[in-house]
Each structure stands twice: as structure tokens, then as C-alpha cells.
């Protein structure tokens, strides 16, 4: 099981890597913006992507659209401060499987990761 964490905040990447570890996923790559995320998904087949929204160079929502346009179908969970209903709908339309709004309780994101993977593998 291999995951990609995309966030311009190194601290948030560390928090999310900790959450993935609690979900038994320890093989994790990191990207700091949407451009790096797209490149990483072209080079590697990931089982899961955690994607921030507001990042320099390329927004997470645009990275999701590009990843899907490239034919990649791995589950993507948006992890973002963008909490408006219209943003959630935009993300789901773009191809995200689920949505976590910051701030989040660590246990909540672990259970969401597990649920998304169970659905993808079920």
C-alpha cells in the first residue's frame, strides 16, 4: 500500500503521514504543490492520495482534474480548509472520493482513510 501526501505545509504533511501510519500505511511519498503531485502520480502508481486545496503553483483541485484526465483512478481525499458546500461539490465533481475539512481530529481522518480504502478495495 503506497500513498502520496500533497500539502505545501511540511507540518501538515507530517500530521497526515502520522494518520496514514495509524491506518497501517507507512510507504508514503510527499509533494508540496499540485505540479509535484501530478508528476508523482505519473511516475508512481499510488493506492491513495491526500490532497490539500490551496497551494502555490497549482491548486489541489486542478491537480485532481489533471490526475483524472491522465487516466489515474486511485482514491483521492481532499484535506483542506475549504469548507464551503460548493467547494466540496467541486472537488467531488473533479474526481475526489472524499473530503476532510481542517481542523480535524486525528481519529476522524484515520477512519476516513480506512473507509475510502475499504470501498476502493471492496
Amino acid at each position, binding site marked *: 500500500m503506497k500513498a502520496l501526501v500533497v500539502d*505545501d*505545509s*511540511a*507540518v*501538515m504533511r*507530517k*500530521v497526515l503521514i502520522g494518520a496514514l501510519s495509524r491506518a497501517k500505511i507507512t510507504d508514503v511519498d510527499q509533494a508540496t504543490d499540485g505540479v509535484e503531485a501530478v508528476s508523482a502520480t505519473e511516475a508512481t502508481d499510488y493506492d491513495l492520495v491526500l490532497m490539500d486545496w*490551496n497551494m*502555490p503553483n497549482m491548486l489541489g483541485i486542478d491537480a485532481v482534474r489533471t490526475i483524472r484526465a491522465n487516466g489515474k483512478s486511485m482514491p483521492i481525499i481532499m484535506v*483542506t*480548509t*475549504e*469548507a*464551503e*458546500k*460548493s*467547494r466540496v461539490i467541486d472537488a467531488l465533481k473533479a474526481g475526489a472520493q472524499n473530503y476532510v*475539512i*481542517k*481542523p*480535524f*481530529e486525528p481519529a476522524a481522518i484515520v477512519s476516513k482513510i480506512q473507509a475510502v480504502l475499504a470501498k476502493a478495495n471492496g
Partner: protein
Amino acid sequence: MQVDYINPFIESTCELFTTMLSSEAQRGTISLASPEANPREVMALIGLSGMARGIVAISFPVNTALGMVNRLLGSDTKVVDDVVSDAIAEFVNIIAGSAKARLSGNDRPPIDLSLPTVVRGSNYTVDYPSGSTWIEVPFTSDLGPFTLRVTFEMKPGA
């Protein structure tokens, strides 16, 4: 700035402390921010644009900033380094993001966020744009005191 606009920012600050820091932030008396007020040693700022315009600034004494980051990461950092700056930037991003959702609700287009900026040091002053009104909210917590400052206006017709 309407004073009511400050409430979503206060609620978002308290939510951040509860959910991510296992702490409780308690607000003090709301007031107009004084231009002469001495900023704390670490300050993070983020801009709001689109259907509204404004700036959120949150400033911390060093010990509060270190306490928050160490609580979040389970670390024992003793100096304000890039990791601490990064975390403080993320905190203001989360507070502003959560507050803007409360302000725009489901009826208005989303408000846009800028990327956050962090200022470190003890010898600087903040000059507010002329004509802007800043509301200041002091907080206390078991991680130490800090101050939230906000200037915010919805655009006409929003």
C-alpha cells in the same frame, strides 16, 4: 468592520484548539486594535478576497508558538525554526478557512484565501492600512496567551 464578523473567527480559533491541539482557548475582551500595540514575537497573516476582503493576523509569544507546535507534533522544539513558522502559517490558514466558510454559508460564493505569511522577531511594528478597522481578541490557553486580529468587510451586494 461590523463587530459581528469577528464571531466566526473566534469560533474557528476555539475549534482549532479543541480538535487539533487537545486544548481550550478562552477569549478575553474584544476591542479595537491599537496601532501602537506591540505585536507578539511570531505573527502569521493571511488575506481574504473575492466576495469579501480582509486580513487575519494571529500573533504569539515564542513560548505559546512552541507549545502549540510541540503539542501538534509531539515534539520538543525549543526555538522558533522553519517548522514552527510552517505550523503557525497553517494555523492561521485553518482559522481563516474555517471562518470564511461560516461567513459565506451556502448562499454566497466562497471567499478566497491568500497563502499565509509569517513574521518572526521582536523588533517590528505593524502599520495598518489607513481607513481599515481592526478588531483585536486576546486569548488564553494552557499553551499560553495569543492575540487574534481581524479586519474584514463583505463587498456591497455580497
